[in-house]
């Protein structure tokens, strides 16, 4: 049972981070479908940092890994920002391209490193068994992960930034009615850039958290299994509001966690379902939930529409 709770919180934290990333981007008016690719790149940045930080004190490992994941996510999301904001590219195409680019680039980079170390090693796996332990603190049988705290802090910060600061309110104005925002002197391009870059940072953090959640090594060819899109479903279910996103993430996290730990429950095993059913669960649930809730969705009005100064 405690294992189920632990995994639920772990995956919920990942979803909270990434969904909040999507939330910032969409509130600024840019649909970020590239979160999946951003997660992969963030995970890559973090994993490589851990790989080379052998024998450092845990604090250093944790801080540097988090920083590296955030920075790679940020840099990668800039590709989306420049195409969609400055060149007015189709946000769906660029987002999809980013997903494929993230996956391909991460695989190529990891394989290049592995081959350079040992020509016989053609896998796309990065190991970080010892370094991962730096993230964990055992509190009475419960493996507390520092990333959980990071997710909680960011959740609170996101709520405050969006609703209680000038920046957040201006950001949301750009997603609702950019022309009006522009008319009162807000730089829409700057706001949208910040929205996308914040989503890059949060997506990167979500990525590194996802790969240290269950494993001590990661095969980058596999990517993050649609988690970026699950996070978008969480965001829609959460109606683009941080506190609701947190609740939605807990629900989805629970179903994802079941896929990892179902074999530990006798009554689930006695149902004799194939493991695939549990793997499908998060996606089926998200489809049902979206079908039931999307009708009255409160999406930012101007999301997906490139802003052109001077256009009415």
């Amino acid at each position, binding site marked *: 049972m405690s294992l189920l709770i632990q995994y639920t919180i772990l995956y919920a934290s990942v979803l909270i981070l990434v969904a909040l990333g999507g939330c910032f981007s969409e509130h600024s008016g840019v649909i970020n479908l590239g979160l999946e690719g951003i997660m992969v790149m963030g995970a890559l940045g973090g994993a490589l940092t851990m790989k080379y930080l052998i024998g450092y004190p845990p604090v250093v490992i944790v801080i540097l890994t988090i920083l590296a994941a955030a920075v790679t996510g940020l840099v990668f999301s800039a590709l989306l920002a420049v195409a969609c904001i400055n060149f007015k590219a189709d946000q769906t195409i660029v987002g999809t391209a980013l997903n494929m680019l993230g996956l391909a680039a991460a695989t190529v980079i990891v394989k*290049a490193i592995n081959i350079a170390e040992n020509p016989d090693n053609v896998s796309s796996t990065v190991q970080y068994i010892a370094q991962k332990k730096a993230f964990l603190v055992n509190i009475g049988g419960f493996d507390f992960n520092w990333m959980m705290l990071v997710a909680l802090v960011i959740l609170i910060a996101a709520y405050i930034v969006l609703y209680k600061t000038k920046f957040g309110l201006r950001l949301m104005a750009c997603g609702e009615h950019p022309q009006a925002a522009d008319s009162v002197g807000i730089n829409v391009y700057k706001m949208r850039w910040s929205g996308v870059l914040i989503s890059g940072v949060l997506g990167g953090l979500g990525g590194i958290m996802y790969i240290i959640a269950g494993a001590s090594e990661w095969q980058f*060819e596999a990517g993050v299994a649609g988690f970026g899109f699950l996070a978008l479903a969480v965001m*829609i279910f959460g109606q683009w509001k941080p506190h609701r996103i947190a609740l939605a993430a807990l629900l989805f996290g629970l179903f994802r966690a079941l896929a990892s730990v179902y074999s530990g429950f006798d009554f689930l095993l006695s149902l004799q379902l194939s493991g695939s059913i549990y793997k499908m669960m998060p*996606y089926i649930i998200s489809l049902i939930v*979206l079908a039931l809730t999307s009708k009255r969705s409160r999406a930012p009005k101007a999301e997906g529409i490139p802003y052109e100064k001077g256009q009415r």
Partner: protein
Amino acid sequence: MNKEKRSLLKNDGVQSFIASIICILLGLLLGYVVLLFINPAGAGEAITSLVKNFFNYPNTTIALKYFGSTLVKTAPLLMCSLSILFAYKVGLFNIGAAGQYAFGAGIAIYAALAWQLPWWVCLLLAMAAGAVLGTISGILKSYCNVNEVISGIMLNWITLYAMNDLLTNVKESASPYTMHIESVSPQSIMPTLGLDTLFSNNQYVTISIPISIIIAIIVYIVMEKTKFGYELKATGFNKNAAKYCGMAEKRNTILTLLIGGGLAGLGAGLFYLTGFEQWSCGQSAVPAMGFNGIAAAFLGGLNPIGSIFSSYFIQHITVGGAYLDKSMYCTQISDLISSIIIYLCGFVLFMKFVMNNIAAKREEKAKAAAKAAEQEGGNE
């Protein structure tokens, strides 16, 4: 003569062509730079062997055989790209093509191995399977307001796991792969009609290739020359205006994704019923065909005929990736190049804008020159 040149640059088809060429060249260039970073020693050789693909074989008979294999893999890619561009013209982004393809593949293989049905029945079942999945996305989109991209991705993963489970029933006992269709059920393999002899007896070269090209032409005719295609495109341009004009916009959305799904499913049938490849039941990712279809669709300028060539090109470099020196590089370099190309396709609108500007400037200059010449003539 100058006048012709101007109108040429303003022509939409020419603009799309130039933009695609720019995307390809930039994509290859960036791929080369990546190769240089990984290992500068073999980069030049690597990029040429990637572009050469089957030309790497000096023997024409063998080269012809591998050319056939590239074509076999082009047919499903073309179908996926048709699926995506068809939906895109109606304003829908059918990223679920990957799942529809996987569903079609699973059903085609299962029908062939478990029921040993003739090839054309398997093919139709594959098409129906893809269409069902597309219809689900369509209904969710038009009645529940669920973004088709998100429902598509969810369905992709659900389908992958479901197909892995389904096909485990017909897999070989010693490997994760499904049984060979030609040995279990020869009537489920598509006929070659003598096409194989054209490609050094490559048994996998079947009627799948001409079928896919004919379907590309049909899609072109439906989109450009029929009332049905016009209605669909009108729905894509402006849903509310289409509704106002009495077009059933909800029905059109569902119908579009149904057809898109059918195309992707059929593509899977066209590939797996050649027996070229078996399904691996331990697959942890949806087959990349559907996603590469996005690249092919946009690279082809969203034109079914253009797609024929762009699909071939994408498949050419994907297969060409296998010829890289494995002690230095990995085959995923070609995935990287095609994803860079898709990213660059996002800039096509901007490139067209620049081309239009150049054309307009030239026109202005020519006009000014003509005017000046006229005035001079008047002065004399």
